[in-house]
């Protein structure tokens, strides 16, 4: 027995004597996690949050959240002697005088960008595969909450240096709060402690940024993970995978080694970015000054869609009876995100309402199998991307030498025209892909072998789809048709609910395109005219042709 084994043994006994945790630990070690590349997106978010906590803790040792003014006397020569706030001066110190401070600052900023990006992509994965369906609606809502908290946390964070860019962002945030009817001035004065800029905002942002918001995020992430652990991860259809099991690698050692290694890989990427790619060079922007702003001022990317909606909104304002409602500010920055995030959080219930689907779902949908959901998703992405482009309209105008007025007008129109087009295009593509899959399942793979029949007719030989692919495509484990209806995924022909009736089924779509909003399960090859025994499947060559018999 090696020393390592002995130590493990002794340690396990020591802990179990006190906690009786043996059973729990063993079950945890043996827990099965399904494998798919897309399941790593949420991991990236988790790992970037860990990096944020580590790097942020280090930064908090040097940063001073104070608006009181000092004359800069650090080593960055161009700003020597300039009057600035302590917040900005301490950020400069982190960047120039603290050893390893700049790389830590840049790692912190890059991992914040990555955190938000991975949350968004992870959300798309969960959306398009239908992983939010019963019983996982709670985790979906937690996820959406984390997204919103992440945006707030990021905004609070990049406002702290009190450079010219972030101060401008704060002033915009203050003006947005002002725009809310009735309570706007109260809200703005409450947050800022008085008329902008007040004296309190940085202290408040600081405690929100390092205590309140990260605490909430940490708690919700913990809950998010516990739910995944308890409910077990979803999986894609495949051989041996059913609604009632999990197929994958066990937590220990294989999954733990891969996930742990992946954490370090994510950290390595962020470290390389932090060292090699400059981000938010606040010393170039200079200290905040209410009368200054740089051209091309832009928020971090995850706030960009709101900046875009603000730029594209027409200049409507209602005034009368001594009161003013600035629709031009309130609609794009308060109402729009309110509606978007509410719809997002409620989507699982909205979809269930329309499909009437109250079943448990542990097998993931392929996006093409649920065209309406997929189309809603791509439509929303199109809307979002247009807003993002709107947020950069000045940069686009100056890079491509276009008129900013034209860009804005085109985007204003596009916001209403492009999403519906994307919706219908996606739906058509999904239906076409479904048919192509059906082609594969029912008629097999084109072999490239053309045979001439005695009658003179030419036919192409097809090779039945190997079972592995067939199961992945159809989710049907067996080719015995009587088992099909028994899969939990819902028999075909069930009501699709109001609004998703026949009008969506295009004329030339054969009736074997049943899945529309809910995941469908195609029939196996048993109902093709010429079934083949499994064993007779020839191996395929690179070209897809059957290999010659050995």
């Amino acid at each position: 027995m090696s020393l390592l084994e002995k130590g493990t043994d002794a340690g396990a006994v020591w802990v179990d004597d006190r906690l009786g945790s043996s059973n729990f630990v063993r079950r945890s070690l043996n827990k099965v996690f399904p494998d798919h590349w897309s399941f790593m997106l949420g991991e990236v978010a988790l790992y970037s949050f860990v990096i944020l906590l580590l790097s942020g803790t280090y930064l908090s040792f040097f940063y001073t959240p104070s608006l009181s003014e000092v004359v800069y006397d650090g080593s960055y020569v161009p700003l020597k002697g300039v009057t600035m706030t302590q917040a900005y001066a301490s950020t400069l110190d982190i960047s120039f005088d603290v050893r390893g401070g700049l790389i830590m600052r840049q790692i912190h900023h890059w991992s914040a960008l990555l955190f938000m990006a991975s949350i968004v992509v992870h959300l798309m994965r969960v959306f398009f595969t239908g992983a939010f369906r019963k019983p996982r609606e709670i985790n979906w809502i937690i996820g959406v909450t984390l997204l919103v908290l992440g945006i707030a946390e990021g905004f609070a964070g990049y406002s702290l240096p009190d450079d010219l860019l972030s101060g401008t962002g704060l002033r915009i945030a203050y003006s947005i709060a002002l725009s809310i009817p009735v309570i706007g001035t109260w809200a703005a004065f409450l947050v800022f402690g008085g008329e902008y800029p007040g004296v309190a905002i940085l202290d408040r942002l600081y405690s929100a940024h390092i205590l309140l918001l990260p605490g909430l995020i940490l708690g919700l992430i913990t809950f998010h993970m516990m739910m995944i652990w308890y409910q077990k991860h979803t999986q894609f259809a495949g051989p041996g995978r059913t609604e009632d099991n999990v197929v994958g690698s066990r937590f220990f050692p294989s999954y733990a080694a891969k996930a742990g290694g992946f954490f370090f890989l994510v950290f390595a990427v962020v470290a390389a970015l932090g060292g090699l790619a400059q981000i938010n060079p606040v010393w170039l922007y200079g200290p905040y000054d209410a009368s200054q702003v740089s051209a091309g001022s832009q928020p971090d990317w995850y706030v960009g869609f709101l900046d875009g909606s603000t730029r594209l909104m027409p200049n409507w304002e209602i005034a009368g009876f001594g009161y003013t409602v600035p629709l031009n500010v309130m609609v794009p920055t308060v109402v729009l995100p309110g509606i978007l995030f509410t719809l997002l959080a409620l989507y699982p219930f909205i979809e269930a309402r329309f499909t009437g689907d109250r079943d448990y779902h542990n097998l993931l949908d392929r996006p093409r199998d649920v065209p309406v959901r997929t189309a809603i998703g791509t439509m929303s992405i199109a809307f979002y991307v247009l807003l993002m482009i709107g947020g950069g309209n000045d940069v686009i105008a100056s890079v491509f030498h276009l008129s900013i007025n034209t860009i804005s007008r085109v985007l204003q129109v596009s916001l209403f025209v492009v999403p519906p087009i994307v919706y219908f295009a996606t739906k058509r593509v999904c239906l076409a892909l479904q048919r192509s899959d059906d082609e594969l399942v029912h008629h097999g793979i084109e072999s490239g072998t053309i045979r001439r029949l005695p009658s003179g007719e030419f036919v192409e030989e097809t090779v039945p789809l190997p079972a592995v692919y067939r199961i992945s495509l159809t989710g049907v484990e067996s080719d015995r048709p009587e088992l099909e209806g028994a899969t939990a995924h819902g028999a075909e022909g069930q009501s699709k609910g109001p609004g998703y009736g026949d009008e969506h089924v295009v004329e030339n779509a054969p009736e074997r395109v049943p899945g529309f909003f809910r995941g469908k399960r195609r029939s196996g090859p048993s109902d093709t005219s010429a079934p083949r025994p499994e064993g007779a499947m020839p191996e395929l060559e690179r070209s897809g042709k059957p290999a010659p018999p050995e």
Partner: protein
Amino acid sequence: MTTPASNTGGQQPSPPTGQTSAQAGGSIRDRLQSPRSSDQASGSGNTRESDLRENGFQQSNSVADLHAGGRGESQYDSSKTPQVTAEQELAGRKHPLGPEDAKSAERKVSALFLLSFLGVVGFVLTFFLVDNDYASSTRYLYTPLLGTFLALALAGVGAGAVLWAKLLMVDEEAVQERHPFGSPKDERSSTAQALKKGLEETGLPRRSLLRNTLLLGAGSLALLPVPFLFGLGRFQHKERVLATTAWREGVRLIRQNGTPVRLGDLQVGAIESVFPDVEHGTKIADSPTLLIRMRPEELQVVEGREDWSVDGHIAYSSICTHLGCPVKLYEQQTHHLFCPCHQSTFAANEGCKVVFGPAARPLPQLAISVDEEGYFYAQGDFDEAVGPSYWERDT
């Protein structure tokens, strides 16, 4: 959840060995176009599917069975799995690599771990030895070197662990049953009963006085934070604070460096940021103002503001009426003022009316005059609130 897959292995057809083995990921056609033989797949560690087929999807369960032996409720599906001894099992778990390849894989993984160590050494040496002073010539190298070594150190361990798991750990598909989430009916009803019984025991449904006073007492507790919220801000005269700036009658227009602006300082077509000549005047956030000089004939004076400008000199609030960014970009030819934040555009020669963008109102104009020494001064505060709109703003 109609078919509890009590024996997934039984439903899995066992095709003959040596078949096309699948690689996870990629579209089906891609995968079909590059079929791998079982051997190739093993070589690259992608033995999932082939193992699965060859073992009929059952053998992989048995490891779990060994672990689960003696446990009350088996988490793994073991009902139909033939019992095997540990030796049989280990022999049956096909190691992905032969001994030669395993040795080489171990060397690769170890090399990556070693790389980590070197990365850490490089990081520490750079951290302490490279001069990062702003005046030194190596400061441009400091952060990039730190980043490179840190990335190497982290990537070594990370890639090593992943490769280790992929090449050297037994790659097997394990199957675990899911537990249904809904509790059995009797479980639910007895829980509901316990809840009801407990509620009954508190007497809340019957004792309405108790219930109502509790609601009142606990409800008012929830209101306790409200006074504290009001403590967060200074709300006295907030409407007046918002509606006024530091400009007063007779206050001179000064530049950011504190010097007053005199008639004739500005060329035609020039623009100057001006501030009220009061204490901290250049720091007050709502007072920055723009002084623009254009040819008097180009200026279309707004009715009622005939004496607000002096010889083509006209002053507007610099704070955008949209979201409060400082509007400063001035286009001489068109007399357009442009806000870089959200691209609101104002016509400075026509009372700063909005010609494009999301701003709804013109920039407020400051009435200016020139004293006998030739210095500009304000005739008073702006006649309306500057900056973004708010609920109580009286237009």
